[in-house]
């Protein structure tokens, strides 16, 4: 039995190969992240087979470096954890396979971790979690409101019916000539422009907690194309600001409505799009105004993207609840939290 509570965590669900060592579920001893962004920028988005090939090139370097940087060795570890979904199947398989091998070789328990729970637990590095809790998880692949009545219980109460918010950023980024991932640049441009175009706020007034971003994306693309045909060039800062205002309005309003319907002690903001300054500022403002009794934890900027530290933090809780994978663990690309019963 190891004396220290150390978890070696793996994350390879998309285009980052990451391995981390986490102590007591809250302390990052190392968090190695090898990103493939430069590679996929050649193609304007993540190409799954290319991503899988990069993961296998980097997996053992990331493991070795994570241990070295943490100053620990295999006998010090308590468990191994790995993202087994959701994500790209070929990418997930490299992490799942490597994690199984390390756990097997050193007689360690293996903890299967849901990538979305991982994103949520990035916020655990900011402060303690209090339940019941609501989370707004926004990334390139997901946009969902997750209700947690207590620790280790997740229910989706709202989700996107088409594109994820981050996906919409990448698609309109392409129209503006911004390469994937476009979120950061659009966020910066938005800060320098005005909401001049008043794009639609989809489903904003509907009495549910779901999202839709494909209508906004189409309205944006039509606006730009129509101007192109007239030979008119629109102000890119105003376009970015108008798009972002529409996204942020819908995300913030649905989140406030979720908090009206579900009395919680805490709101978590996490996922790649949680790094968006427009969204962070808006939620700060709205929470102070409408839900000042609910505390908010925003995932740290450098842990909003995919990383293994967040997987290790989630795994520490999963481990306490007895989650263990057998050697037949497989990647589950479509893994989802359950939808809450209506």
């Amino acid at each position, binding site marked *: 039995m190891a004396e220290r509570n150390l978890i070696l965590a793996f994350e390879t669900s998309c285009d980052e190969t990451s391995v981390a060592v986490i102590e007591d579920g809250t302390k990052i001893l190392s968090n190695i992240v090898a990103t493939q962004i430069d590679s996929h920028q050649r193609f304007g988005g993540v190409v799954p087979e290319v991503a899988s090939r990069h993961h296998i090139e980097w997996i053992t370097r990331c493991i070795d470096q994570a241990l070295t940087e943490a100053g620990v060795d295999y006998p010090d570890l308590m468990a191994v954890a790995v993202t087994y979904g959701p994500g790209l199947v070929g990418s997930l398989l490299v992490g799942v396979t490597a994690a199984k091998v390390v756990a097997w070789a050193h007689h360690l328990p293996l903890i299967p971790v849901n990538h979305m729970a991982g994103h949520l637990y990035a916020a655990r590095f900011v402060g303690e979690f209090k339940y019941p809790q609501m989370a707004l998880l926004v990334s390139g692949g997901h946009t969902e409101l997750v209700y947690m009545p207590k620790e280790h219980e997740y229910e989706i109460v709202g989700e996107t019916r088409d594109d994820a918010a981050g996906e919409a950023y990448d698609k309109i980024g392409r129209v503006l000539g911004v390469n994937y991932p476009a979120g950061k640049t659009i966020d910066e441009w938005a800060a320098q422009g005005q909401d001049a175009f008043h794009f639609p706020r989809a489903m904003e007034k509907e009495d549910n907690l779901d999202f839709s971003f494909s209508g906004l994306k189409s309205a944006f693309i039509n606006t730009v194309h129509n101007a192109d045909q007239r030979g008119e060039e629109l102000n890119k800062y105003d376009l970015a600001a108008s798009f972002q205002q529409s996204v942020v309005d819908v995300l913030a309003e649905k989140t406030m409505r979720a908090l009206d319907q579900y009395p919680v002690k805490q709101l978590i903001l996490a996922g790649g799009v949680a790094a968006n300054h427009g969204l962070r500022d808006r939620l700060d403002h709205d929470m102070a105004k409408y839900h000042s009794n609910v505390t908010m934890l925003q995932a740290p900027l450098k842990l909003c993207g995919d990383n293994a530290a967040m997987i290790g933090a989630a795994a520490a809780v999963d481990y306490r609840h007895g989650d263990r994978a057998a050697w*037949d663990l497989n990647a589950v690309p479509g893994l989802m939290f359950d939808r809450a019963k209506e």
Partner: protein
Amino acid sequence: MKVLAIDTSNHPMSVALVEDEQLLATTTLNMVRNHSIYLMPTIDNLFKLVQWTPADLDRVVVAQGPGSYTGIRIAATTAKTLADTLKVALVGVSSLEVVARNVLPTSDQVIVPFFDARRGNVFAGAYQWQDSRLVNLIEDQHLAMTTLLDQLGRVDRPVILLGHLTKRIQDQFDDLPANVSLAPRAYGIPSTYQLALAGEDRPAVQAIDPFVPHYLRITEAEANWQKLHPGENRQNYVREV
């Protein structure tokens, strides 16, 4: 020397434990199921049967491709991670060579193992036993089945094809050239005992980190990109952040 040999290049999944050239245990599944599910339990089970612990291992030998991209990645990820984490020797052997070894060393035929690579293409190489050593005559490559048969028809000696002749490969041609024959299907199933023997006295890889499968094809996305960007020769597109 205690050797673990793994091959998940195609439909068959095979694992063997070999000690000093003796086969101790082997399992082959040929059910077209998911190698990711069955590989680790199979390894675990065989280790229990022969009463080895992971730390006993001296060497991992893996069929490095060509084959199904996902398949060769599962075997290569398993092998390189195991070698790295236990600090043991790692050897990669051509997945086609493993199949070629099913032919007796007394044969002097040209041995041509092949795998279906879809769209009428195959992965294939040419091997021959010379003085009890299996020599690679033509290196493993990706080519159209029709091109392969044209080339084999011009060889001035008997050629034996080893592999599973799927319908989509069969549809590519009418008859085999006169000097070419197809081995019974059993000869196309890889034996990881043969793989272990092939890898036992071969030098281990110098560095484990760069060890990757032999895909023999760049991805379609990269091929298209290279056409549009001639002369771009950046090697490494991944960086630590």
